């Protein structure tokens, strides 16, 4: 007897609400091309990207401070295989601590020579300094900027 399979597809549309803090963060990206963090009133850490509260202290973070535009790479991966529905490789993705920040921020690293993956990895292993680079027409999204090795 043949086992029956039934085709299915989840294709729902959503509108995600970013909230006030992230909206202001995105507004700063679009209008002023600067990256902002918010400082926790209790532990005094400058959290980047900006958010409404510190999830360790459960305290508000209402002081807005600009960070960067340079920073230090903390850890990385180089994506070399394509997965359905995700951007095409090779892609370098890294956590970077922008100058002034107490936390690291994830984004893509552009402009690297990826013809030799192992060589590129060794370069990133040295935890290079990077600079934030904005796209020509920022839209107020986290993808408005990426990192570039200095």
């Amino acid at each position, binding site marked *: 007897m043949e*086992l029956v399979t039934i085709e*299915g597809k989840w294709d729902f549309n*959503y509108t995600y609400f970013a909230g006030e803090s992230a909206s202001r963060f995105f507004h700063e990206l679009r209008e002023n091309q600067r990256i902002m963090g918010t400082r926790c009133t209790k532990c005094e850490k400058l959290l980047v990207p900006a958010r409404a509260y510190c999830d360790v202290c459960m305290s508000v973070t209402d002081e807005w401070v600009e960070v960067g535009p340079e920073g230090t790479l903390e850890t990385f991966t180089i*994506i*070399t295989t394509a997965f359905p*529905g995700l951007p095409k490789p090779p892609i370098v993705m890294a*956590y970077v601590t922008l100058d002034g920040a107490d*936390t*690291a921020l994830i984004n893509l690293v552009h402009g690297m020579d990826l013809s030799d993956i192992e060589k590129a990895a060794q370069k990133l292993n040295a935890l290079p300094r990077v600079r934030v680079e904005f796209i020509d027409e920022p839209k107020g999204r*986290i993808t408005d900027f990426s990192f570039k090795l200095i």
Partner: protein
Amino acid sequence: MSVAIIGVGQTGYRRSFADKSSRELIWEAARLALEDAGMGIDAIDMVISGVAPDALAGEASVERTAMLGFGKPFLRINTGGVTGSSAVFAGNTFIRARRARAVLVVGLERMGQATSSQQVFNTIFDPVYEKDFPLTTITMAALRASMLMRLYGYTAMHWAQIASRSYRNALRNPLAHIHRDVSPEDVLNSPLLAWPIHRYEACPMSEGACAMVLVDEGMVGDRIPAWIQGAASITDSYAMGDRIHRPGATLVDLLSLKLAAQRAYAEAGVDRPREQLRAVELYSAFSSAEAMAYPALGLCASEDGPRFVEAQFTDPTLPVINPSGGPQGANPVSVTAMVRIAEAALQVREMAGERQVADVERAVATGQGGATQFSTVCVLGKRQAA
């Protein structure tokens, strides 16, 4: 009030079970667990179910169609990767609180129905700041693996050795999904997914169901128990970027697992884990996740991790890590953490067949969920905790 696991049921794990509907998988595991416990469904006071992201199955609340018995309290748990252990811990808590004497815990992973699971995994990240990046379970692991290599001197060969050991252990586990003799060289020669992770180091996509019967000490009777000596569940901050600069608790220190281990060990009376825990079932979907667990569980210092990997192949006094093959052998996400406890229970009960480790007085099982912001540690023993 002590709690014991007296029944374990597993369907076994595969890429997909085309011959079983979701409810049939749940029923099968539950039936096997009850059989092992020598109990009928009428003796069960409560049913606790665990399923993680619905989108992996493409069915919302997939457990809803699989009622087990009639007229009982029921609850569903979803804590990502630790869903399975959270469900077991919930059962443990209800019994210890004397709200139930016997609990049936059942978990299902149905990701065999998903044709693009990494795309689904991308949706578990924050839609505001993260979802536009290719963050997946694989790349999240890669970001940590590269940090471990830089900090503690792990090499690609260490990752390959860990993966190969797990594959070879899985050869002795008939329930495992992958039965393939993979050498460290095979891992290194497999395609690179996301530096430094190779395809054969990534856990498989598996489905299947796991169930357990938990009872209070008065109901153990003539059954063979695995006593829950210690169980602890600890959270951490969600944002991985927030953990990079925390002294002693960086992204690769797994503070939540360390604290969970300390708490569970204290309950269980474990103070020399390396000697007292003979079998260790780790929720390590990648080799780097296993490496992060060593210091958290007190098996070695962080900087001794690479040597600990090598020593496992030569020193028979060390605990046996993932005798079942671990998540490398089968990774049915929703139940992977429950399978760790199930396998640890089988070791303690001396019912692990060909994968049985000798003289397992105590075994430990871990769980890791989300961006490792959830960690669970469960210590099981042949005897009740003193």
